């Protein structure tokens, strides 16, 4: 047993850090902040050129064959650099599912364009009445000859305004239990009848409501078997649930410590105590993320471990964002660019943004269900 990183991972870390220092410029960060679109085509394509957006995939499929451990290093460095990563992570959640469950034609026509950085995909899962209970989706897909006609509405279709396809969860059968009447589609966003409306969020991030009015797609747009969409969703969810926010918290701790030193307020006991607690939770959060990666690296499915990492890190991020605003005082509320603002407004931004981390990609309640039922073997309520 040892906790040392590998030489390969650390040389990779240095490479990623240098790359991000070059590509995640202040201008990129400012544009992300202004538009609320957490994606930058220049950064995305430069990463694609290095085969980093699907680095975990085998080389024969356009990846680099990296294990979960190297992927965790990449994630940590993206967070530490404050890089926009939503476009990439949403796209890869869908692409992983297509790689597992898509047709040969879908793999041939979609995946190369994803890996080259040419296109993005987005996720059409949530609905006005289906959040954590995504299997209760009502968006209807009806067969009409050789094609399907889709009608309905999806919430939080983040990145739909930049994406070429929506990875869409639909209801194809109302006569069976809810999980057994779902079908997945890959719907081009230029299909007639598809519309979107921007939604602005507390964190400044832009998302969308997407509308589907008699959207007609060929049967070749279907991903997986008819009425077996939930099997495809489970693959996608296993990728989505794996996010750990430990490195994001570590970035806040480092910025908080820099502020405390520069202002001399590190001398105050309440400041020192708060920073030490945040640093401790960041250490635990990163270890849980590394543990989950290590379980994956060992060839096992990391579900309970991934849930623990996501649950702890997102809850810790919320807790400490608030605590750090408290120790700094009202100056922490000032917007970037205001005279007297602290750390480019990072703390007020983190405070607004962090609350969603415990909601999306499997809310804390869903993660606790997974941990208590699959991890501890407790009965379902």
């Amino acid at each position: 047993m040892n906790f040392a990183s590998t030489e390969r991972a650390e040389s990779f870390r240095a490479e990623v850090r240098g790359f991000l220092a070059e590509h995640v410029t202040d201008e990129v960060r400012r544009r992300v902040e202004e538009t609320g679109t957490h994606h930058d085509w220049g950064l995305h394509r430069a990463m694609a050129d290095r085969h980093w957006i699907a680095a975990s995939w085998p080389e024969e499929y356009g990846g680099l064959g990296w294990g979960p451990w190297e992927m965790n290093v990449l994630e940590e460095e993206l967070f530490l650099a404050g890089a926009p990563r939503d476009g990439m992570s949403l796209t890869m959640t869908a692409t992983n599912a297509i790689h597992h469950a898509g047709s040969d034609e879908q793999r041939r026509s979609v995946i190369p364009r994803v890996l080259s950085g040419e296109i993005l995909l987005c996720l059409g899962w949530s609905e006005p009445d289906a959040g954590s209970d995504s299997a209760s989706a009502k968006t209807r897909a009806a067969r009409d000859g050789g094609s399907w006609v889709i009608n309905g509405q999806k919430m939080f279709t983040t990145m739909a305004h930049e994406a070429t396809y929506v990875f869409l969860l639909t209801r194809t059968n109302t006569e069976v239990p809810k999980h057994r009447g779902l079908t997945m589609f890959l719907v081009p966003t230029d299909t007639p009848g598809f519309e979107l409306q921007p939604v602005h969020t507390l964190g400044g991030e832009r998302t969308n409501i997407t509308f589907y009015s008699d959207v007609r797609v060929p049967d070749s747009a279907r991903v997986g078997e008819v009425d077996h969409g939930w099997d495809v969703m489970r693959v996608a969810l296993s990728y989505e649930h794996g996010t750990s926010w430990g490195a994001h918290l570590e970035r806040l701790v480092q910025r908080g410590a820099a502020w405390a030193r520069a202002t001399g307020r590190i001398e105050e006991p309440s400041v020192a105590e708060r920073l030490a607690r945040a640093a401790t939770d960041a250490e635990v959060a990163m270890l849980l993320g590394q543990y989950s990666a290590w379980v994956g690296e060992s060839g096992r499915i990391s579900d309970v471990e991934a849930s623990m990492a996501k649950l702890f890190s997102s809850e810790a991020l919320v807790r400490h964002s608030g605590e750090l605003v408290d120790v700094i005082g009202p100056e922490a509320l000032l917007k970037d660019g205001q005279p007297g603002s602290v750390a480019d407004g990072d703390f007020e931004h983190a405070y607004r943004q962090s609350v969603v981390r415990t909601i999306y990609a499997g809310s804390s309640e869903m993660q606790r269900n997974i941990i208590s039922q699959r991890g501890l073997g407790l009965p379902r309520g």
Partner: protein
Amino acid sequence: MELTLTSDQEALVDAFAGFLAKESPPQAVRAAEPLGFDARLWSKAVEMGVATMALPDGGAALLDLALLAELVGRHLAPIPFVEAAVAGRVLGEQRQLATIALRPAVDGVARLVPAAAVATAVIALDGNELVVVEGRPLPLAANMASAPLADCDLHAGERTVLATGAEAVARHARALDEWRALAASVLYGIAASALDIAVAYAKQREQFGKPIGAFQSIAHRLADDATAVQGLQLLSRKAAWALDDDPTEGGRLAAMAYLWGGEVANKVAGDSLHYHGGYGFMLEYDIQLHFRRAKLWSVAMGDPRAAYTRLGYQLFSGAA
């Protein structure tokens, strides 16, 4: 990063776990109260070599000792394993049962020294001297946790100065780092076994027609507790590993592991007791044993909140 135990570590853990399961069941833990020491168990453990393996030339890494300390916590074993290991590493020998004072002496007296009611040698930092005082075990200071705490007058026995000045302070500080890492492992063991008890009880105890573990108000708190326990296992093991293998990180991680371990163990033991309802408050149920010991270990060095503050200064003031 490789989190699988080596075959040597696995053999060590299996042997000690089997030994404690047989020799330190809850009845033995209770029988050893209020002193909190089972002399027979300790001499058997010494025979097994768990005391001598802690010595600098004993062949064990600190991580190996941490794995044993986890088991001491899990079984609430009434033996001064951590104290003797840390003291032995300071003295470089194990010819007698030694322990170490965690707080500097005041007016020549080290107060409430762990295991001093059963040890025959006490190491302490007395002003700028690191001393060892030999003599008979000291009178027990009866306490909530049934731990062999005692006050030690550092001029009352046979006193030997081990080091002075900066060297004394550095050797004491290193010993405390090791104690923190191993105490974090004990706290992990206490928390992990309190969690096991809680989960087993939540599956078996029925109210309102179903097992109480089916209620999310309980299941979700247990999920939080299980997550914290997993995080503590990783952090405490990493701290012990780092003290040997990554010296720049060792002290920081040991402090974090100890402080966080105290919070986790107290919370999980408290939650577990709470899920038992009134039964958890009865002495007959074992969870009260965990509840009392979690507090003992977490408060042994003084106010944890003040320790977090000191850690903040160390990490971030830029002075260090």
